[in-house]
């Protein structure tokens, strides 16, 4: 496994993961600005702007751009997070220069026409509408909405129909001027591209972006949950319930993520051996899967358990989940041997995360943008290995419990609203329609 290093090329941080096994090149152009920069009431602005850029430039219409990309065997997508906006591309290697040239034009000379503005807004609204029929996606977005309270993390970076309706063309132009420049730009490529070609491409690309300044926006997450708060996301005719049990977590920049990752994996991680999977699926057959995760973001995060039993098993499954959470930090809950197993699993399975060049590229860019040290991947396994079971247990116990949690359930509320409060010892029960964004 070969790790690669960042190079500073003027204002641009650049990275190349070179491998010539396939005639394909992946590239990412990232601005260190994301949904955090969206003004209040106009959430989704950054994503909307980046997406609209792809819809035409001063020299090429949207349809010409799309035609060209398809013809060159290429694809461009926009990924907007809270702290970054990444334009990701992939292309047949022989056409890389042309596609990068076009991408640069898209991001430096977008047309942002009224016609495409209007069309895109309608498309985004259609997308929001579409999510209503996808239970897993709906449950996940509602989890984020209700766990993160009033913090910006509660919004989908794509916004809502209401927030998009407030965005004007002037907003887009101003946002573009403020944020889409080359200061702290990140660029990476992987695959069948040689170093010289890469350097040439980066220099040429960077020169076309205007200079600018940046100010990092931080907003530490301070969540307060009192007791067991239940939120029923009401959707008719559900024979299965998707539920999350969440509570405030830690920042991705905290050293506590290492012991928590080990504990979280032993308790409810992606292993089949994880306690939660064993208790819910293997022993009881209550669901096809049962998972848990530390959702660690730059300014804070959450920890959640998630599963999807049939209606009749939902309350017993939630009760069991809370019991398991309560017992987890004890030796009876998760034994030292289980913590060692999880640690070993994480260390040994690490190569899968960086198996192919585009995966290595993605990981490198993610860690750079979130503010991790550049050698994060190189030292990851050592840092995990240095965590003892006692460390993992005490950090989990300090951060998490079973009493102050938010339980978000996508279900038919009529099946639960009468009994769930008492069954779970809930401090509050709230019903919201599933189509309220």
């Amino acid at each position, binding site marked *: 496994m070969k790790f690669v290093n960042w190079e500073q090329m003027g204002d641009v941080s650049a990275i190349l993961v070179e491998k010539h096994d396939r005639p394909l090149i992946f590239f990412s152009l990232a601005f260190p600005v994301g949904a955090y920069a969206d003004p209040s009431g106009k959430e989704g602005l950054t994503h909307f702007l980046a997406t609209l850029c792809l819809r035409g430039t001063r020299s090429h219409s949207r349809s010409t751009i799309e035609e060209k990309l398809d013809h060159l065997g290429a694809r461009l997508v926009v990924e907007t997070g809270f702290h970054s906006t990444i334009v990701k591309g992939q292309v047949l290697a022989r056409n890389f220069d042309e596609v990068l040239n076009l991408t640069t034009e898209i991001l430096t000379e977008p047309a942002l026409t009224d016609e495409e503005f209007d069309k895109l807004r309608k498309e985004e609204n259609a997308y929001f509408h579409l999510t209503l029929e996808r239970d897993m996606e709906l449950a996940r977005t509602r989890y984020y909405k209700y766990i993160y309270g009033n913090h910006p993390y509660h919004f989908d970076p794509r916004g809502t129909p209401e927030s998009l309706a407030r965005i004007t063309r002037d907003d887009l132009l101003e946002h573009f001027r403020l944020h889409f420049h080359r200061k702290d730009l990140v660029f990476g490529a992987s695959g069948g591209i040689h170093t010289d070609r890469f350097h040439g491409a980066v220099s040429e690309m960077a020169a076309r972006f205007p200079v600018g300044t940046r100010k990092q926006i931080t907003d530490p997450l301070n969540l307060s949950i009192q007791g067991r708060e239940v939120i029923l996301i009401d959707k008719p005719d559900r024979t299965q319930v998707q539920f999350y049990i969440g509570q405030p977590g830690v920042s991705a920049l905290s050293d506590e993520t290492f012991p928590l990752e080990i504990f979280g994996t032993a308790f409810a991680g992606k292993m089949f051996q994880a306690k939660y999977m064993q208790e819910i699926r293997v022993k*009881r057959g209550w669901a096809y899967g049962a998972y848990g995760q530390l959702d660690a973001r730059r300014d804070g995060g959450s920890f959640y358990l998630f599963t999807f039993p049939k209606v009749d098993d939902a309350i017993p499954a939630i009760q069991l989940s809370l019991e398991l959470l309560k017992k987890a930090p004890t030796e009876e809950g998760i034994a030292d041997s289980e913590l060692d197993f999880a640690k070993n699993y994480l260390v040994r399975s690490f190569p899968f995360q960086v198996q*192919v060049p585009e995966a290595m590229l993605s990981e490198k860019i993610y860690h750079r943008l979130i503010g991790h040290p550049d050698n994060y991947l190189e030292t990851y396994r050592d840092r995990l290995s240095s965590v003892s079971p006692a460390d993992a247990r005490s950090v989990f116990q300090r951060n998490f419990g079973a009493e102050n949690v938010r339980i978000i359930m996508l279900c038919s509320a009529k099946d639960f609203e009468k009994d769930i409060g008492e069954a779970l010892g809930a401090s509050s029960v709230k019903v919201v329609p599933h189509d309220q964004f």
Partner: protein
Amino acid sequence: MSSSQEPSQVFEENHFEFGEGLVARKFRLTNGLKIIVLEDHSSPLFAYQTWYGVGSRNEREGITGIAHLFEHLMFKETRTRKEGDFDRMMEEQGGEINAATFVDWTFYRETLPSAAFSMVPPLEADRMQNVVLSDEQVSSEREVVANERRFRVENSPDGTMQESLYSTAFRQHPYRWPVIGWMKDIQAMSREDCLKFYQTYYAPNNATIVLVGDVETSKVLREINEAYGAIPSSEIPSEEIPVEPEQEAERRVFLELSIPSEKLLMGYRSIGATHPHLFALEVANTVLTGGRSSRLYRKLISDGQICSDLAGYSYPTKDPGLQIFEATMRAGEKATKAEEIIAEELKRIGEELVGEEELAKAKNQIEMKFWENFSTVDEKAEALGYHEVTIGDYRRVFTDMEKLRGVTAADVQNTVKQYCTPKNRTVVTARPQKEESK
């Protein structure tokens, strides 16, 4: 049937060279077990997949879903290992494990660090012949599968529509029932049903091992031969699969579902994975729905603005399957509108040849997607395994691209004219449930 007294041997059948220093090789043991090996030392990992030539096509009414249920049960207990041992041993090495069942095959996969190889053949050989089941295990896993069905079908409008499509488009062929099985069958499946199924189909001469990654061919062959060589081959029953008769007229289904807007799912009876028209059909699909400049994407989504989602595909199966188009309408738009536009475009391809530029564009996209999906050791193994078991030749992974490049506009036209006709289609339309019927 091979005798367990003769020493098992390894025969090389063929190989294929592609890329820089990459060679895929196929071997066979005396007992009929096939092994495909592709050495790739760029990462310290390997993928080990075992593909069995059994899927939902081998079921019958009353035990639909048994292939898939049994896939779950393969992870339980054997005569030599207790329940949980298999997963634990794999995960102890940092391995990823999973399995999948489809209409024509079932495959089991593990991906592990290369140092863990020697552990795998004995474990897989063990569960090929030594699985034991208790009523309790079957009962528990039945409930897991029932929950999986609730997740994939009953609480999923797409899953519900797909099930309706196949059960209407096919009346005789086993493709008519869902791979996961009907709920009543899942809940009635017994331990005896499962054991009988296992003993019938799980045998070395019905299996192909696909190995991709940081392995050394002679070493892995030796270890596989040691682990599996003594397992006798078995008489796999010949398939008595009814041929689906030609469709005489269009078929329609209307559903009312808990959805915010109308949805459309159309399936045209088409061809099997070994049919020479397959390449033209793939190119036609890409012309119609591949990329943002494709005809239907423009007419339905970006310019037409009547759909929020669109897909066109045909997942090649052993026997003739379906060419599918699916669309989700925007609020207030009727599915019939999308249906008309799709039908119009199909007719247009049937009447006007696709231009050379458009054809070249489609081929470039197909090439890009191929390389995008031929990336990890797992993806490579899956491509090889699928081609060997469904199409009958793993080498087609590499040679099909040339055939695709050779597709002409006339090929595309003739294929669409032949298969995408109104009488040949089944249309499932889903509408939002009325308020009073909720």
